[in-house]
Every structure is written in C-alpha cells, then in structure tokens.
C-alpha cells in the first residue's frame, strides 16, 4: 500500500499537462485524471440523468454544501470543454418547469462515464490510503 501511495503522489507531482482530445479519439480514461471538483461534479450528476444548466448548478451547490458554486460563465466554459473532449454532449431542448420555460439538457457520453468512474476509483484509493495512514480519524 505504501508503495502505491508513493507511486500515486509521484505521478501527481510529475503530472503531465492535461491531454486535450477531440471527440472520438482513443485516449484512455485515466489520461483525464485527476479531474477538478467542478468537472467531476458535472459528470457525476449527468451520470444520474440528463439535466439542464440550472439543475446542475443547484445539484452541485446542494451536494457540496455550497463549497462548489458555479456561475453561468464558468459552468458553460466547463461544459463546452467537456463537450470538446467528448465527455458530455448537448441533449434536446425541453420544457423545464411548470411555466413552460424551455431549457437545453445535457447528457454524459459513454466515455464521460468511464472518466468519471476512473476518477471515483482514484479518489476511493486515495481515501483508503489516507485512512491507512490514520489521516482520517476513526469514526
């Protein structure tokens, strides 16, 4: 375990610049890691179901207890980038509320799902390593 942790830290320390890929290219899912909290949250909530922008903002705000707050510009810059990387895609325009307002929905791609899963595994390993080293107090 110790070996693994060292390995992971060293790989973080010498992290290569993020590989920018075009949709459809065959870069492995781990090449995207680590994800930023914002990107992970977006993928995580889209993995549950299609959502529109406002839905994403609210879900992320609630789940992170306000730690990750997204404004329109930053959310859509992220979505635009994730779309360029082939991790999410634009869904249909649909009625979103009782007043009949139409909103664009977004959904995760298969590739996006893989990347999110890889990130979840990475975090799980990290958490386990932290627990091994008594970094997380026993509950």
């Amino acid at each position: 375990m110790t070996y693994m942790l060292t390995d992971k830290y060293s790989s973080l320390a010498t992290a290569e610049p993020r590989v920018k890929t075009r949709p459809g290219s065959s870069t492995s899912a781990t090449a995207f890691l680590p994800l930023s909290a914002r990107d992970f949250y977006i993928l995580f909530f889209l993995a549950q179901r299609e959502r529109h922008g406002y839905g994403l903002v609210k879900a992320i705000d609630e789940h992170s207890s306000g730690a990750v707050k997204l404004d329109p510009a930053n959310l859509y810059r992220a979505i635009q980038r994730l779309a360029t990387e082939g991790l999410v895609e634009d869904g249909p325009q649909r009625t979103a509320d009782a007043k009949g307002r139409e909103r664009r929905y977004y959904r995760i791609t298969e590739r996006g799902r893989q990347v999110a899963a890889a990130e979840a595994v990475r975090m799980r390993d990290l958490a386990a390593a932290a627990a091994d080293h008594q970094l997380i107090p026993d509950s």
Partner: protein
Amino acid sequence: MHSATPLLNAATRAYGRLLRLLPAPLRVARRAEMVELFRDMYRDGYSRSGARGALAVALWCFARLARMAVTERLQRPLRVPQRFDGDRMFTRTLADLRLAIRTLRRSPGFTAISILTLALGIGATTAIFSLVYGVVIQGLPYDEAHNLVYVDHKAPAVGFDDGLGGAPGLYWHYSHHADLIEDVTYWVPTEVTITGAGTEPTRVPGARVLAEMFTILRTRPLHGRLFSADEDAAEGPRAVLLSHGFWQQRFAGDPGAVGQDLEVSGRQYPIVGILPPGFRFTGADVYLDNQRDFTEGFGGFNGGMIARVNTGTTVEALRIELDRQIGQIDRTFDDGQTAAFLKDSGIASVPIALKDFIIGPVQQTLWILMGTVGFVLLIACANVANLFLVRAEGRQREVAVRRALGASRAQVLRGSLTESLTLASAGCLAGLLIARVSMRVLLSRIPFDLPRADEIGLNAVVLVFAVAVSLVAGLVFGTLPVLRSGGDLTGALRDGSRSATAGKARVRTRQGLVVAQIALSLVLLSGAGLMARSFTKLANVDLGFVPENLLTFQLSLPSSLYEDHDSVIAFHDALRERLQALPGVESVGAVRDMPLGGRSGGDILLEENDPPAAGEMPPVIWLTRAMPGYFGTVGVPLLAGRTMTQADQDDASPVIVLNQTAAEVFFPGEDPLGQRVSVGLDGEPKWLEVIGIVGTTKQERLAETAEPKAFVPLSSTGTFNSARRLSFVMRVASDPLAMADAVRTVVRQADSNLPIIAMRSMDQIVSEAGAPMAFTMILLGIAAGIAMVLGSIGVYGVISYIVGHRTGEIGIRMAVGAAGPDVRRMLLGQGSVVALTGLGIGLAGTLALMSTMESLLYEVDPFDPLTHATTSLVLLGVVLLATWVPALRASRIDPVEALRSD
C-alpha cells in the same frame, strides 16, 4: 415577482454585454444558455431574499464572469502572427520616427517656427487650463463636498439683494428646526492682534467658530484636537486652533506648540490643536471658539453660515425649506419684534453651493481667458497646417513617386502623421516649459485674491490635457495636407506643382485657414478692445476725493488695553495731534471706513419728520465715525452746511453729516440741513441733526453705484460701529511712502503694542482697485496681439504662395502690357476678399460671444459699435499690409525671367 421584471431585464442586458468580454468561440457556442442560466439564478435569488438577494446573485455573476474573462484571455497563447505584427509595427514606427526626425532636421527653419508656434499655443492653453482646473474644476478638499452649502441671506426691502451673510439667531433657529440639513454652523470673521514676549505685534485674520464647523467640513486636526462642546458654551474655557500656515510661520512647525499659550488681542488662549494644511476655510489664521449664548437674542447679520445638507438635497429645495423656517422664527424668538423685523426687511435665504461661493465671480474671468487661449491655439494650429501645406507642395513629386512605386495613401499619411506628431510632441514639451514659467509669473502677478490659488499646479490632469491638446493638434495638421493632396497622381507626376486644379484646391484650403485665423483674431481683438475701453473709463472714474499725496494706515485698539470708549477717543485724539506735528504733514484725519476701504455698519436711518409707515423699512445707510479734518484731508468736497469740528466731539448736541447720495435718497426735493434723524431701531431714538452734505466717494470698488453714507463724530456714543478700529489719512507735501517710517515711529511712541495695519499710499489703493480689470485686459491684449501676428503671418504666407504659384501667369500679364500697379491691385483685391470674409465671420462670432463678457465690462456696451469698427479696421489694415509686401514683390517681376522659369 412582477416588480422584479424590469430589474431582471436590466441585469440580463448588463450580463449580456459583459459576455462580450469572453473569447469568441465560447461566447458564440454558449451565449443563449449562459443568459438563460443567469436569469434562472437571478429569479432564484429573488425568491429567496427579494431584490437584495437578486442583486447579490447578479453582482456575483458579473464578478465571476469578469474574472474568468481576464484569466481566459491571459491563458490564451499569443498568436504568433500577432506578435510578429507587433514587432513589425514597432520597427516600422521607429523607422518612420527616424525618417521624420531626419526630414525635420533638414529644414530647421520650418521645424523651429512650427515648434515655437505650437509651443506658444500649447503653453498658453496649458497655463490657463491649470488655473481653470485648480480653481474651478477640481473638487473642494472636503469629504462629500457636494453636500456643503454656504447659506447667504438677502433683504431686498432694505436694498440687499445678497451678501447679507448669516445671523446667530437664524443659525440657532435653523439648527433646531430646519429639515434637509444634517448640520449647520455659524462663524464670525474677525481680525486679531497677536502679541507676545519679544515679538512685534501682528494683526492676522481670525474667525470665531463653533465646534460644528469642523464636523461639517469633516476636518481632522494635524496635531492636538478640535474644539470641544465645553468650549462652545458661553463662559466656557478659552481655546485657540491655528491654521497650518500660521503654525509653520510662528512656531516653525513645532508640534510642541499644542499646549502652549498664545496671546490673542491681549488675552492668553491655550493652543489646543493645529489644523491640517488643506484647511483654508474662512481664510483665518487663528480660530477662536465663538462662546455666545445663542438664546439671548437674534443678533445682527455679521457672520457666515455653512450647512451640510442631506444627500440628494438641491440648493433650491434647501432655499424653500429655509424660507419656510424664516416664516416660523417665532418658534425660537417669540418676542414678536424679530418676526416683524424679518418680515419687514424681506429677509430670505440665498443658499449657494460652497464651491461656487468660494470660487465666486473669478470663475467667469477664468473661462473667458481659457476661451481666449483656446483661440490662440487654434490660430497657431492653422498656421502650422499652412506651413505643412507649403511643404507638402514642395514634396508632391516625391509623394507621387512613392505612391507610383506602390505606397498606399495610408502609408503616405502615416509618414506625414509621424512628422506632425513629432513636431507636436516637441511643441508639447516646449509648451509645458512655457506653461511652467508663465504660470509662475501669472500667479505672482495676479492682482486679486485668486481663491484656491495654492491648489493650482502642473498636475497629472493638466499634463494629460497638454498631451491630448498636442495630439489633436498634430493629427489635424498632419492629416490635412495629405487629404488635400487629392488623388491626381498622374498630374502630379507629369508637371510637379503646376497642376492647375490641385493648385486651386490647395489655395482654397489655405485661404480657408487664413479666413479662420482672421475671424478668430477679430474676436480676440474685439474682446481686448472692449476691456481696454472699460479700463479707460474706470481709470477716469470720479473717485469723489483726491488720491494724490495721501498716506493711509489703520489701527485697532484691543479692549484688553483700552477698556472704555473715552480711553479709545483720547488715544486717537492724541495720536492725531502728534501726526499733525510731523514735518511735511499738511493735515490728518481719520475715519472708520475710508474710501475704497470697504464698508461696515449698515443700519436703518429714521427721519424725525417722516417716520416710515407700519410694515415699511427705510433704506439702509452706511454709518461711519469720522474725526474733524477728515473731509478736508482726503479732499471730499463740502456741498452744503459744515463738517464736524472738535466742538462736536463732546456729544452734547449730536450731529451727523450725509453724503450727497444719502441726501437725495432720504430727503428728495427737501433741504436736509437742520433735519433730525436717528439710527437703528433698538430703544429710544437718539436724534442727530444733519449739519452738512459732502460729496459721495467710491467705497468698495471703482465700478460701484453710489450708496448712501453718513458720518458721525468719532466720539459719538450709541449703537454705531466701534471706534476702536480707525483708518488714518494724512495729506503730505511730497511722496507719501517716504513718510512711512516717521509715522511708524510716532505710533510706536504712542503705544508700542499696536500693530500698524496696511500702511499704503492712496494711489496704491486706487491702482489695486483697478488691477483685476487691468490684469484681464493685459492678458486679453497679449492673446489678441499674438493672434494678430500669427494671423498676419498666415495671410502673408498665402499671398506669397499665390504669387509664387502664379509667377508665370503674372509674367504673361506683364508681357502683354499689365503694369506693376495692376498686378498689385489684383493681388491686393484677392487679399481683401480673404480679409473681408474673415472679418465678416469674425464679426458674427464676436457679436455672438461678447455678451459673455458683459459682467467684466464697466460702462461699455458689449456691442459698442465704435470698438468693433475700430478693431475691424485695425485688423483689415494689418492684413492688407501683410498682402502688400508680396504684392509689391510680384509687381516687380521681370516678365522675361518669369516666362523663362516657367
């Protein structure tokens, strides 16, 4: 929710605009979605915490967007071609600049004249702008100064249309009842004598203020503290605050001065604090606490009042509120008399923004000067543009070759602009130097108290102004020649400068420039002419006395040393006798307010035989004490009766002398001699017999309308102004100032603790009274002179150009029989057309602009036909003279030579 919609739409629009900051790809792809999300979040904020919540959300989104835009743009790699472009542009500009400098150095005459002309224009404009900026534009050095208001009052029923100032009773009433006011305070300007061990007694301006003054102006002391509430109270502890300047001068900036005692008018005052350097309000050096019991009575209008109003209150709203309060004065003073007095004299408030009050009438003079130098700058630019046109002419073939070789018009323009901007920059630098020097001269010579003079300087704003002016000037005269060069490339290549059509267009451009110069010059010349005429009238105004060989000075006897009225009178009498005994002194007199020495003691005059009807207020009269011999000494003529003598000094049978204006105002069509009058409304009237009528003198300014004035014997008892302060006038045999030392010695022998105030000859006082107008006149005269010289150089240049351009044609004319005079006539005719067009436009401009000068003039109509006719003729003469010289040269052309050179 409905009320939120307009705000939502406004916020959305703002957000939409901000989105433009984002890089194009993201913006194009996601704009609609970002806007929609923004609206959703805004609504969410509104439903959670109302408008405040919505606003917070909006601001947060704006800020995040702005931050992201910055990081996005910074992170984007610089495009390679862009950087390459930048480099190339820099290299190219540098090369252009080098070429421009080389070209300009090749024609040093042209370069020097252009730079000098521009430097004059830019320098003059910058110097005057720095005055305008420092005095008029720049905000006052107080926190939220826009909420500060000076509260003046007027009493139209007794002849005061403004300038009455404030009264303690009104201050007390306003401070307790008036709405719209955050705070109001009252102060009394005064003069105090500073005495002390081992120092000469000095007289300095002082003010009796309340602690509120510093709260209102948000002043923080430099050292020590400000006044406390205790010190405001009647009979409270004494305290004094010093201005920064006085502290520097008297205590050499030693912070240890706080806590020491200062002897003010014979009494010891502890220095509690030093005011900061920026604090110049009231202009006092020494601030004493005004320990008055404001409940004891209304008091007189002898102070100033300022207020800090609630934000958003207009001067007009405040005026209405204060006038309403004046109508309710009996809430504070319920004696009935106060209300009647205010009503009968028509007292009303005249609030003025504090800045306007401080700047005062000098604002208009400064703007007129600014306009004047602006005109000079325009004329200078026109001249340089003309020079550029001449040069462009000479280089036409060069330009045509460059264009034929593939240079675009833009490239040619760039070359020309680089040259003009290089010249303008040099002109700007030299102009700043001129501005610096001329400002120093101007400020040291300004003959009147320029408000805020110490806030004037070459600061960043003034520098930006100078650079902007130079830039615009450079662009204008750099672009003009290229635009005028037209597109006739082949013509230019074929026969150089002799393309007839392009030549005509250029002549027209240059003529247009000269027309503009003549028009602008005429406006300046007419302004200067009107000022000169006003000044002549003012210099010849009847003063009402004989100013030559008069020495004047003032004394003020402190109550600590001269306790009662009798000791004051005894001192003055004794001093007069001693002065009279000096060799070379013909006569000595004394009066409280001497001619051109201001006025005080305005009061009501009642006639015994013609008491005012109920509710009617008789006009105000200015009352002053005078010693026997005063009228003879200053040369005021006695028109009827007699003046006061030593025998009248005992006050047994009280007497009064009226000036002619007072006699006409109070006794129209009657003989005032022997009539009895009394002064003031308080108590039993004390009747004074009118014993004489004397001539009216100018009291405050040369350009004032005559005002009623009366004189009582120095020793009179009653409610007149104090006899402690007196102006002595001495008629002497020769130069008055040569007597100064002898007079000082006599006064020192009489009392070594008395400061002698303002010892001057009456001639000095008269010339100072005319100085502001002389100053404006001289500045306008200089500007008009420069304008005329530059204008005639322009005309000379154009006619010379026409002559050069038409040498061939003139040669042919002369070859076929035209004589020299015909050629001269033809050219003079062309010059006259240009001159008359310029004069016509200039006259129209003059008539449109002169009404702005009305307030600066004295007894001269701004549309005075004589002035305008004279200036037009003078300018026409100068222009024709400038035409004559090249015309003469043309008429001497040898036809053979001319034809050969063609």
